[in-house]
């Protein structure tokens, strides 16, 4: 514990030092830390495994699943997934020299409720039921969605508006890290959007309830998009040496 504190102190000192240096030099180092293919694969795998593990854990230890008890399952899932996503993506933070790892972790944690608010707004605008009996489900779902969409970008970009705009408004990812953020986030949103389609049907299945099928859709979209993002990253990595030649 102490070691960590000391580590933290030294790192804050380092930040201050760097800040001073930056002010002196007026040099910006915007280049993101290079992401190698193994890093990308590893981080995606960890995130996906985290989701799978949390599902397995809720199923085996608490013997619930998304259909029978969506509120608790979603709660456990996002609690389980939070450290994984935040810790993994903070490693790829922008300006790693100016921004310490723990600072990135901190803004990632701060991003969770913010992203949840945005997700709640979107879901309710699209017709998610409003009511006390749905409240807990909506909150837990939005926290999970925030983890899948908003938090990685918060960890990596911080408050850099241009980056946010580039990735989310224009959907024009440049580097590997952009792909790693942009594609899974969009995948989760599109998956959730598509997952809402069976809700009005009269099949009388329990999974048609809010937010069960939307969560399934979001996670499926997230996983599919992760594969796509991996593909993109690998293609880029394979091409890079060619370009240098």
């Amino acid at each position, binding site marked *: 514990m102490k070691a960590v504190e000391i580590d933290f102190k030294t790192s804050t000192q380092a930040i201050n030092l760097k800040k001073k240096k930056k002010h002196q030099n007026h040099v910006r180092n915007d280049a993101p830390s290079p992401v190698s293919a193994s890093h990308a694969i590893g981080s995606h795998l960890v995130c996906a495994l985290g989701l799978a593990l949390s599902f397995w854990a809720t199923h085996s230890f608490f013997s619930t699943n998304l259909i029978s008890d969506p509120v608790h399952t979603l709660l456990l899932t996002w609690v389980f997934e939070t450290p994984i996503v935040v810790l993994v993506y903070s490693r790829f933070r922008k300006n790693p020299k100016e921004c310490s790892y723990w600072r990135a972790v901190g803004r990632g944690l701060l991003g969770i409720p913010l992203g949840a608010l945005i997700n709640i707004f*979107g879901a*309710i*605008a*699209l*017709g998610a039921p*409003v*009511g006390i009996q749905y409240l807990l489900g909506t909150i837990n779902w939005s926290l999970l969605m925030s983890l899948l969409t908003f938090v990685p970008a918060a960890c990596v970009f911080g408050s850099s*508006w*241009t980056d946010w*705009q580039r990735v*989310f*408004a*224009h*959907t024009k990812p440049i580097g590997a890290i952009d792909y790693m953020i942009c594609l899974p986030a969009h995948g989760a949103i599109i998956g959730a*959007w598509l997952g*809402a389609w069976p*809700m*009005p*049907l*009269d*099949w009388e299945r329990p999974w048609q309830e809010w937010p069960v099928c939307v969560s399934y859709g979001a996670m499926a979209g997230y996983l599919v998009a992760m594969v796509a993002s991996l593909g993109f990253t690998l293609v880029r990595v394979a091409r890079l040496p060619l370009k240098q030649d």
Partner: protein
Amino acid sequence: MPPLTCSGLTTCSIAAVIVQMVGVSLFMLGFFPVKPTLSGVSGPESFRPPDHEVYNLTTPLPPPTHLKSLYQELSEIPPSFDRLILMVIDGLPAEFVLGKDGQPPSKALTDAMPYTQSLLKNGMAIGYHAKAAPPTVTMPRLKAMVSGAIGGFLDVAFNFNTQALLDDNLLGQFFSIGWKMVMLGDETWLKLFPGLFTRHDGVSSFYVKDTVQVDQNVSRHLGYELNRDDWDLLILHYLGLDHVGHIGGRNSVLMTPKLMEMDEVVKMIHLNTIVPQDDIKRQTLLVVVSDHGMTDNGNHGGSSYEETDSLVLFIGPTKYASDYASATHNTAYQVDIAPTLALLFGVPIPKNNVGVLIAGIFTSLTDDQQLRALELNSWQLLRLLEAQLPGLSCRSFNSDGFSDDQGLGISKCSGSMDEMFCCLYRNAKLLHSSWKLKTVSSSPVAAYHDFLKAASEWLSHRATDKPVNLLAYGVAAMILSCVILFTLIFCLCKEVDLREKQLFSDKNRTQGWHLHETFTLGVTLFLVISMGSSSMVEEEQYIWHFMTSTLYLLLFRNIIQSFPAGTLQSSVSAIKGQNKKCYFQMCSLFMLLVSGRILRGWHQGGVNWTNLPDISKWLEQAGSDYIKLIHLGAGLLLISLSLFGISLLKSKRNFILVVQLAFSIPGLLVLQHIMKYQDSTSTASSYGATLLAQTIYVILGIMTTGTVIASPWFMPVWISETCSSCNFYFSTSVSIDGQNKSLLIGLRDSVYLIGWAYLYFWCLLQMLLQQPINSMPILLLLMQILASMLYSSNGRTHKQWVEVAAIYYLGMAGHFSLGNSNTLATIDVAGAYIGLSSHSTLLSGILMFIITYASPMLALLSMVMYISLKDPSYFVIPQNADYGYLLKMMIGCPCLVPLCLNSVLLTAYTVVLLLMRNHLFVWSVFSPKYLYVCATTVCVYVGVFVVAVTGFYTCLVFAMRRKRQDPFSNEMGKSLIGE
């Protein structure tokens, strides 16, 4: 492709619309055949030949007991039975009892119904495969059984006030001769015949999962009723077997026990009422029927053999058939039940019956009586034929037939339809008359059957056949008009695009398709795809809201795209202005989304989830006082909003004051109407309310037409020196003189004023007509439309067609938030009589249309305001262009885009309906939806017409004013008048 002229565009679009109208009418005629039916009820005249119509129809019918004896006397057939038990087993295929293709049913099935099978073996019962007509669902089948007619869809649809069967039918005939009737089972009977039953116990067919309780609820009264002697007709309707089929199909494990249960019921009735018929006066006939069959999976509704194979089983005290084979291998039609029962019980055959009596039941009668029965049936069918073939007249043949010798009058029948029917009828008639005189030995039965069979087949085919030609031509015409409209809009968009490029060449206008543009088309595509599923049609409100909100969220994203980067650092005023505009747009979109969500929550809507809580239910629970307060508040807000909106005009103070005064008068009257008359108690019929409502109609009409006609003339035109701000807009076109500019600004202002007048008129009318609970949604809809106006007037980032389409979608999504759905039951009939002093189908129909299409029409009318709020650079006339070009730029997109989108939906849905014609829910889900689609088309036509006429009129007036001001430039005015 050369640019379209204004007149060319107009002609083409009008042609496309006309083609579309023709296509829809052809399709409607083909898909929903309207056959002429005879109104009224058969009376004593039906026992006289059709050529003796001298019987006075206006004579009041004698009281029931007299009528009964009169009928007996006239019919010359002694009634074979006194009492009837009609046992309906829902969904039982005749195959289960009678077997198929001459083979008896399987061992398991015969074992399941031992008593019924033994009756058949002894010849005590006689069974028929009674072919049912599609749609094989319960209510139309019951109607066919009791009236003998095959109804069309439209007479069901236009009868949405009541589900009661108003046509001539058996039960009505029985009622008129004083029968006492008892009904146990499916409550459909109670809906069809309200007030006819002395005792009844209806069960709901809603809980399909329940296979036991529904039938127990019928059987529990059976012992009691069978012991009583006070009824003449007992109807038992067992639903359980249909439910078993729906759950597990034909081979469900529950099927055998259910058949056994039904067999027990048959046994109980037979042993209790038919066997111990010691009292000769109370002869009872048991008729076991099924309304339709089922497929192997247990579904029904279509026209396959499995579904249409329904059962008729007559069980009486006498022996019908000598052996098992002749008791089971008979075929008939379901409509034959009505004339058979009518003749057996001595009542007139229902007027619109197309069935033929089932001869096997009449074997116990003498030959004379059998021929009489055939004759009565022939007369009835001949009357119906005469109604459907107006040229048919066989009466001339009748009179000279008697003098002929035997055999001379008989001829081979051929030729046209009319001639053939006449010939067949004449043959039968001649044979009958000579048989009576004992001049021939051959029985005329065969001749009668020839005529009856031909007539019945022709009549029933007319009711069910869909002429393929009409359908094909209809669909082709619709597709053609769709293609024309698309071509037009494509050309127009290209031109608008070109113009925009000229104007804003510096803007970051990227080539290719943006996401929101693709999605705007995607909305329609998703809708078309979802229309193929019946549950999606039932719950369409979710889809519209989902798609519209998604579209607006994408537009939100689009704003963020154009949000300038580096917000903090920049201090340039242009970027700040851009920022401000972005914030403005964001706020309006936010408001739009929020009010859209409230609208979605106002009425749950749909079919399956109507019981879920929504705001309207919540408010109704809270009490009518709150609703009235909200109603008043919404009215006040509406008035103040519109007054504020008018005051935004930068015009002369006096002019604005006059307009505001004119606007506020009907508003206050509507408020008074709300305060005084729209309580929870229905006082809508009181004289004062009617008068006030009529006054409001008149004043609103005068105000709106007055504003529309006068404002282009009296709208003050700015002097160019005072117009300093507008120079900013016109900086791109320096060559235009000040007068031209000021006229354009005047044109814009007057269109803005007319737009407000339309919106205000429509909203006030809705405040008056809609249910009080819908006042807030009307206001929210108006807010949504105003927000989208604000949004589109503040930026030039979108193509025009996207904005128009988005407004159109808003209107369609709002349609459902006023409580409408795709079933005909949600049409607000009560509001259609506000302000009408006497009943008028046309006027109340128009009011009903106004109420139902409040939201789409509001969106279409708002296009007028949209035109005025568009960036004025659209209006600027290039050097060598004319008013025609201006008009095209102004109203081209707002008129063509709704027409185009609607034509896509209409055409696609027509194809869906055609594909789904054998679907189980074609009559309950898809056909009502088609009526709604057609009504929406009418609404779009009306709205677009209003917008186009307004635009044309305003432009015309300004062209004339310009001519008056500047006599040298009349060629511009001329060119427009030339259009």
